[in-house]
């Protein structure tokens, strides 16, 4: 077991989106991507070579006022999407399996991560990005397991964005053929909209919540590839109907893989671990075919 402690924390000011007024100035953090692959680009909010963007100009003559209308199809989240794709390429080139873990606050994400790290660290390299509005508490909990973690504080932000992950990875330097677990801000709405460059989204849904959660938050459950139904050790004390919760999740997303688990007793974790091992092997074998010098 490796004991590497990195005490990095990104302050809110460093990760908060810059105001448009400064959008054309180079970033404060001219970070070199780990591995020397990519220079952190000054922020450009729009790519003129963007394949899905067409525009043409119409000049409308309005009496007493000259206006000029630009017609376009600019993707509002285009900048985030481009950074996410760059992250995805960077991760794929190193055979790293990156997962975006999302849930409402208190569903047990950090406890589940701690348990996963304790059980798997001996057999694979795992690094963690912790997203929270404030405090470094979760990163401290993760580091206590011996894993390397970077805390990203979003300040008023309610979700992680691709540029935050890019900067976190610069500090974290995840190893080739490793697992990168990204714990998003506890929120079932906003994180679903922002691609970070992950291989898959994992939603954690605890049995202490209502069975209708997937129906209430369909974007989140629709975007996820895996659902961990957590805290199942509490089932004897609750009137929670597991079959109804699973049925609701499949109503929104018929292809969702569902693993009922307990981080406390360990029940059901083997299925989750098998899924992680299979995913990591697939990422690493693709990487082996294009081994980097």
């Amino acid at each position, binding site marked *: 077991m490796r004991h590497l402690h990195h005490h990095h924390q990104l302050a809110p000011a460093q990760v908060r*989106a810059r*105001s*448009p*007024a400064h*959008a*054309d100035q180079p970033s404060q953090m001219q970070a070199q991507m780990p591995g020397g692959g990519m220079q952190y680009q000054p922020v*450009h*909010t*729009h790519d003129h070579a963007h394949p899905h963007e067409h*525009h043409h100009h119409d000049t*409308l003559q309005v009496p007493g*006022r*000259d*206006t*000029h*209308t*630009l*017609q*376009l*199809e*600019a*993707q*509002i*989240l*285009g*900048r*985030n999407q481009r950074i996410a794709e760059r992250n995805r390429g960077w991760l794929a080139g190193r055979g790293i399996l990156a997962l975006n873990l999302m849930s409402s606050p208190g569903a047990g994400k950090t406890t589940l991560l701690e348990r996963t790290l304790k059980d798997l660290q001996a057999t694979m390299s795992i690094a963690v990005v912790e997203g929270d509005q404030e405090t470094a508490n979760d990163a401290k909990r993760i580091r206590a397991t011996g894993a390397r973690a970077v805390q990203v504080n979003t300040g*008023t*932000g*309610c*979700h992680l*964005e691709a540029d935050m992950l890019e900067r976190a990875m610069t500090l974290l330097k995840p190893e080739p053929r490793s697992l990168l677990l990204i714990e998003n801000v506890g929120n079932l*709405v*906003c994180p*679903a*909209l*922002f691609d970070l460059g992950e291989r898959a989204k994992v939603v954690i849904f605890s049995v202490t919540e209502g069975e209708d959660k997937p129906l209430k938050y*369909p*974007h989140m459950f*629709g975007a996820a590839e895996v659902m961990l139904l957590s805290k199942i050790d509490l089932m004897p004390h609750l009137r929670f109907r597991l079959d109804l919760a699973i049925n609701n999740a*499949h*109503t*929104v*997303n*018929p*292809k969702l893989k569902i693993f009922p688990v307990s981080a406390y007793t360990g029940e059901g974790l083997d299925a989750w671990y098998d899924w992680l091992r299979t995913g990591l092997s697939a990422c690493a074998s693709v990487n082996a075919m294009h081994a980097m010098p």
Partner: protein
Amino acid sequence: MHELSITRNIVAIVSEHAAGQRVTRVRLQIGQLSAIMPEAIRFCFDLCAAGTLAEGAKLEIDETPGRARCDACGEEVALTALVGRCPACGTGILRITAGEEMLIREIEMNTEEASCA
């Protein structure tokens, strides 16, 4: 509220296209399945546009209704919320064909007064 971050993106893209000219009108296309609330965008827009070339611009939002096609029976259905299974045949998986758009469609600028905000 993710709409604040999204509105910041809108203002940034608009400002870049405006290239120093004062923006008088912005037209967006927001799909009804996009998880973005037009009202929340309106709420944030003036705040985010303050001090930029888009300050005072009129905001227009076209909403696109959700549509999907079933991969089993081929049925085209209207969607008001995200559901995975086809309501027509009950077995197929729905593929969304419209309603997830998040686009800036038009930017109107005043060519008289070039400003350097």
